[in-house]
């Protein structure tokens, strides 16, 4: 069963549309909504365009296309092919209806009216006669085996550890540069010291000779 559907803009994480499956048996979706919002903020153009993330007893599947991310939360036994077929379906329809206006909106949930289409599509895809759907759409899908399955928490934490690593690396490079400059400076000073002694001795000798023989 598809529990949660969210569509957001990648550049700033602004939610554009959403649909919640409110059922007596469904769990409290608040924490999954907040995880979804955090995920939207972490994604950027270099993230994989299709991915599945495990989180507790449920799985997030998302699809990124043209700066918009389409995300659903499903139970673990929900077929992956169906999930991505559903995502393709809503992606095509959303771009068809609102594609041109996405960049210019500023208020959250601007396209909330799209929820009606999401509800209808959800009804089609969660129908118990799913095997019929599968055979119809199976040939069109890409090979879902190539889509990575990862753990949600690791993705959220990865961002943090990567930035920490990045900071440390840049700090290290600046420190080493400073070290190199200091070492060169010390080197130079010791050269001066060495040659200074020699020059002074030479100068004294020259002065002695000068005053002795040429005066």
């Amino acid at each position: 069963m598809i529990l949660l559907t969210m569509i957001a803009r990648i550049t700033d994480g602004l939610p554009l549309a959403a649909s919640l499956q409110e059922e007596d048996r469904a769990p409290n979706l608040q924490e999954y909504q907040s995880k979804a919002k955090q995920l939207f903020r972490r994604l950027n153009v270099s993230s994989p365009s299709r991915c599945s993330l495990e989180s507790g007893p449920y799985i997030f599947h998302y699809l990124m296309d043209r700066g918009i991310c389409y995300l659903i939360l499903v139970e673990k036994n929900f077929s992956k092919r169906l999930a991505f077929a559903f995502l393709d379906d809503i992606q095509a329809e959303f771009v068809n209806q609102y594609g041109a206006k996405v960049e210019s909106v500023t208020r959250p949930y601007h396209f909330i009216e799209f929820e009606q289409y999401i509800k209808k599509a959800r009804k089609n895809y969660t129908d118990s006669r799913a095997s019929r759907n599968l055979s119809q759409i199976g040939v069109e899908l890409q090979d879902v085996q190539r889509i990575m399955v990862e753990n949600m928490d690791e993705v959220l934490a990865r961002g943090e550890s990567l930035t920490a690593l990045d900071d440390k690396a840049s700090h290290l490079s600046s420190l080493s540069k400073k070290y190199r400059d200091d070492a060169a400076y010390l080197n130079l000073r010791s050269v001066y010291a060495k040659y200074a002694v020699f020059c002074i001795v030479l100068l004294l000798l020259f002065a002695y000779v000068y005053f002795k023989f040429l005066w």
Partner: protein
Amino acid sequence: MPFVAPTPPLPVGPMPRQMTSPPTLQQPQWSTASAQHRENSVNLLRDRQLLRTHGSEPIETVAPPPLGHSFPAEANCNPDVMSCTMNAVPATAELLRRSRLPLGLAMHPFKDLRSLAIIQANVIVRCRDCRAYINPFVRFSSQQRWRCSLCFLDNDLPEEFLYDPISQTYGDPSRRPEIRNGTVEFIATQEYSVRPPPPATYILALDVSQVLSPDPAVAKSATAYLTAVSQTLLRCLDRLPGDTRTQLAVITFNGVLHLYKLDGPRPSLLAMPDLDGDSDLPMPEGLLVTVAECRDAIVELLESLPELEFPAVPGCCLGSALAIAHRLAQSSGGRLLLFLASRPSVGPGALSGPAGSDSDDLAGQPATDYYKRLALDCCSAQLSVDLFCVGPGHTDLASVMPIAVYSSGRVHRYPHLPDDADRLASDLGRHLTRKLGLEAVLRVRCSNGYSVAAFYGSCFVRATDLAALPCASPDAGFAIQLAVGDGAGTAGASEPVVFQAALLYTGRKGERRIRVHTLGLPVATRIEDVFAGSDQRAIIGLLAQIGAERIITGASRLSDSRDALVNAAADPLAAYARATGQRGAGGLWSPPGIRLLPLLILALLKWPAFRPSVGQLDERAAALAEVNFFVGAAPVI
């Protein structure tokens, strides 16, 4: 009828705010000597012509004094939107007690306004400690810092605040619309939404128990109300506030519950005989449908509603109807329009017992708390219930009324129906097409030293200063009683006392908005200034709502409320005489601001809500609910 008070013009052409020197407050314009006070005050025993003309002139009110040229001309919100009972707020609790006047605010936070500044910003500037919104009374200590006018804490100013979108200039934050206007509306950012905006949902619950009554007059009135309702709904169907996802459901009930499946080409009726079972819906889809998609079926149902053949089961199962409606609207919230024609007699929430005599002191209180508990459930599901009482007989409105009172709904009563059908149609039309504020919360903040003591109005009070309104109405009014604490007036006589009310709601297009009203008033340290600034319009509104609330909740009997209202008029006059040393001088002296207060209290005591005996108990209950809903509903004299 609501008052429209004329306000004297405030000084125009504000001078630009100084960045570094703190602005000073102009001294209030009232007299400082008590002799001059005696000239301004009114001898109520001698001067009988207190009203200039008869009837329709609006009651005069004392407007807040101009706060000086350092604050912009529009710094205070419109007095029709929010006003304080005293225009010079007492600095100590002792001063307030000596004056015997109530200190409070009377407000209509969601009133329809002709012009409103709407601000769309990436970040909404708020104080980091007390969370007050930036307002015209803040001081800028530098280009990047501002001092909150409520808790006097310094805060940072974001870069984008220095740009004024209206005049397209950069550099002076005091030109921004938030600083120039006392009432602004922000388009809320993501953090203010708990869930995606739900579709606007309207559920109609109609009592048809009187349609098959043997008495022809009763049957005729029942048919008349069904005709009026269906005609109005057909007329307003395209103007219902909401976007394309707007949903509608229809329920009718007499002794059994009838649900209507609307998602086919034709509507079909389902009767649900089992009332006490748990309220599972007979089918998951088809009962609550999108108006845009199923319009034909809805129109056909509404057109045929007055002549429909209902299963003839006597009784009225209101509790089950409410439970089903709550179940339908559980995920989206919305509005339930409930039409009640007879006393609920079967199913959960059935009321029994004698009607009681109408002069009984306990006549305003509910017989059961089933409806109050159901109202709180509706509130948590963000469902607001409006109650229309359309029966000619006794419907025990006092017991059913809490369902509307605690879920921010309104109660109407039409006892003489075929004649009142036009009034029903126009009221219902206003109800359906007025502005919508779903999932609303209202919070009031005050300067240091002042706090909210109690909240009155048709809402669910979650905390002392926070009220939950499943659907905010432009007609609703609230009264807030304030208390003066220890820290009041410590900032000095030149700092205004600021009250701010913020209403967070979801608009008709699903956007989350915050409407903020700010009121700044000078501090009074002397009793004469307190009396000179008292405002009878706000005082009578506050007293009326307090009185109605006490009777509805059962906290006091009718006779005690009446005595309290009379004392509320007599005590300030006695305190005034003591304060200005006129005791025994002959005559009854009153400060000009409250000279009409005794007259208004007398008029209030004649209102059906507070009259010692009314013809029907339901009339008192409906009047109490109306006073509770709408501040300023005191009758026109």
